[in-house]
């Protein structure tokens, strides 16, 4: 689960991590007043669930409140397209107005999960403000990585090693040690899958400040934090993805016209792959869960049909233990409820598969049966071509 920069900074500051003075605004008028409060000189930052905002014109330095207001009017409601958003971009609904500071040095700092070691790791670099993947490619020697032992936790001397490696010394080095320890504390207590402070700066006056911050929460741990669901900005998500989430279905909107419903993530990915192989373009990824139930199948079917791009539906259920006749009933009920006229191909495997096929063929729907994965994909592509 992602949150906005201003929310990440709020959380970090509760852990004693210094952030620039700021105000979050929902209207151009609020932006103007916030800019006045900062003394006119300030940074106006669009809040979206994606990075790369600076290069896309989502972050602007302004010099007086009226200018801040003008920038805000331009940004509010605009779909900001960055290299992380995809071509459709993300709508700007909130703006962060932040004081400017004189920067002496910039660093990169993050804590995330390292899959290889199954541990959290801290990554730091003296190349702040840059894309860390770029730094990793161009100058890997400038990246410092520390794998954190879950039993001992992150120790002070380890944090100091990192701060020293960044070239810090004296009081600001000790400030950085504390900041690193607090970031790790925040990561654990708030169940973060990523905390990224980029850049972390030292100001001319010798203060550390988290100039930009990103936090992602571990989706599996959201249940432990009652406040998290309210922190979500639903305007940043696809409406169908939100509906799917309510039914515990993994749905991702794609650009094609064949709606897909599959049980299991791996098989769902493979189904998209095979559709493309036969010249089809999937409209979505949708995993109804390995043990697909009749209810989930019915909800999933309705979600797929809410997408107006969908011109045909491919259902691929390797039921195994689930009975295919039950799955078939779920499909038929949902299709009848929403009056689905579109061509449908159903490929099912599992117990009672013949009963399931019979039910579908006698349902009056525009449906064909796929004998296997390849046959099903070929049939739906052919039906779509004729339609």
């Amino acid at each position, binding site marked *: 689960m992602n949150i906005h920069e201003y929310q990440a900074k709020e959380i970090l500051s509760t852990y004693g991590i210094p952030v620039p003075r700021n105000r979050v605004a929902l209207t151009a008028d609020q932006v103007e007043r916030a800019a006045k409060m900062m003394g006119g000189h300030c940074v106006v930052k669009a809040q979206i669930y994606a990075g790369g905002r600076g290069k896309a014109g989502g972050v602007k330095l302004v010099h007086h409140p009226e200018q801040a207001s003008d920038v805000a009017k331009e940004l509010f409601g605009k779909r900001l397209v960055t290299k992380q958003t995809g071509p459709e971009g993300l709508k700007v609904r909130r703006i962060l107005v932040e004081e400017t500071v004189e920067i002496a040095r910039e660093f990169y700092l993050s804590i995330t999960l390292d*899959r290889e070691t199954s541990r959290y790791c801290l990554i730091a670099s003296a190349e702040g403000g840059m894309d860390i993947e770029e730094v990793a490619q161009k100058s890997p020697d400038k990246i410092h990585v520390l794998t954190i032992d879950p039993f001992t936790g992150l120790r002070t001397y380890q944090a100091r090693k990192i701060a020293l490696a960044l070239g810090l010394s004296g009081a600001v080095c000790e400030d950085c040690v504390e900041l690193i320890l607090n970031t790790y504390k925040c990561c654990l207590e708030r169940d973060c899958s990523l905390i990224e402070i980029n850049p972390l700066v030292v100001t001319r006056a010798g203060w550390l400040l988290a100039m930009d911050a990103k936090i992602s929460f571990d989706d599996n741990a959201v249940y432990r934090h009652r406040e998290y669901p309210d922190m979500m900005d639903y305007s940043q998500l696809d409406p169908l993805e939100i509906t799917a989430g309510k039914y515990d279905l993994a749905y991702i909107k794609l650009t094609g016209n064949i709606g897909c419903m599959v049980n*299991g993530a791996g098989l769902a990915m493979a189904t*998209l*792959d095979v559709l493309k192989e036969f010249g089809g373009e999937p409209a979505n990824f949708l995993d109804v869960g390995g043990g697909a139930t009749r209810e989930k199948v019915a909800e999933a079917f309705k979600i797929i049909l809410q997408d107006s791009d969908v011109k045909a539906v491919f259902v691929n259920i390797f039921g195994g233990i689930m009975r295919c006749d039950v799955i078939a009933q779920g499909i038929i009920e949902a299709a009848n409820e929403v009056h689905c006229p579109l061509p449908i191909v159903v490929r099912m495997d599992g117990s009672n598969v013949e009963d399931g096929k019979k039910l579908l063929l006698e349902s009056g729907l525009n449906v064909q049966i796929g004998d296997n*994965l390849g046959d099903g994909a070929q049939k739906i592509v052919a039906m779509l071509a004729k339609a």
Partner: protein
Amino acid sequence: MSILINKDSKILVQGITGKSGLFHTQQCRAYGSQIVAGVTPGKGGIHIEGIPVFNTVAEAVQYTGATISMIFVPPPGAADAILESCEAGLELAVCITEGIPVRDMVIARAVQAQSKTLLVGPNCPGIITPGQCKLGIMPGYIHTPGKIGVVSRSGTLTYEAVKQLTDIGLGQSTCVGIGGDPIIGMKYIDVLKMFNEDPGTEAVFMIGEIGGGAEEEAAHWIKENMKKPVAAFIAGSTAPPGKRMGHAGAIITGGKGKAEDKIRTLQECGVTVSTSPTRMGEAMAAALKK
């Protein structure tokens, strides 16, 4: 022969009184697996389907001699269940549960790694040695005894692969679903090592997906060490970057974890890669002929 489990395996089920725990206990038993005990804290002393239920894993082990655990405990208590089975000194814990918080798994995995207990999963379909023992949620009927070892991060895609193998007459020695989470117990290499040593396994089919670098790691290990032919399929060639494709671990981030890179690395390391999920069985047959 087989790896990890066989007809003599004595299994206990953690979370046996839950809905899916009970359902799959029945399914596994119908397949012929020896389920000797159940564990549900607070329900010790009862019998369910004739299986004695205990409050703790240690008790279940003491009274029944179980050496393997199958875990269906819901996410908030699942890491605890793994830790308990490690402390009880089991040989193997197979965690089916999906949705365990990462922070819990970091601890559970670290403790487990120092114990004598092997961990498969979490978020996995389990293990099956066809004709002998089913320890998980996979449909038994698609499997057939034979000499192909199968290892996979996926559930239903593994069923698809197994069915294709069975359809062309290639039976399986053991199929291991290692799980779709970022933190898992046994990884590809751990399972490949066992298949390499198992006289009952002639070749291996490996199923991977986007995200992380486990397939690449495995590819390099195969090149250096594997004495048996390996074929593979990687799901997600058409997946968009930055989107989590169902599994917590299936995401392309920062240009890493792409299917094309995994496929190329596997091919460079001598693995026969099926480019389509419709030809997984054929790829295995081709690798056997090499």
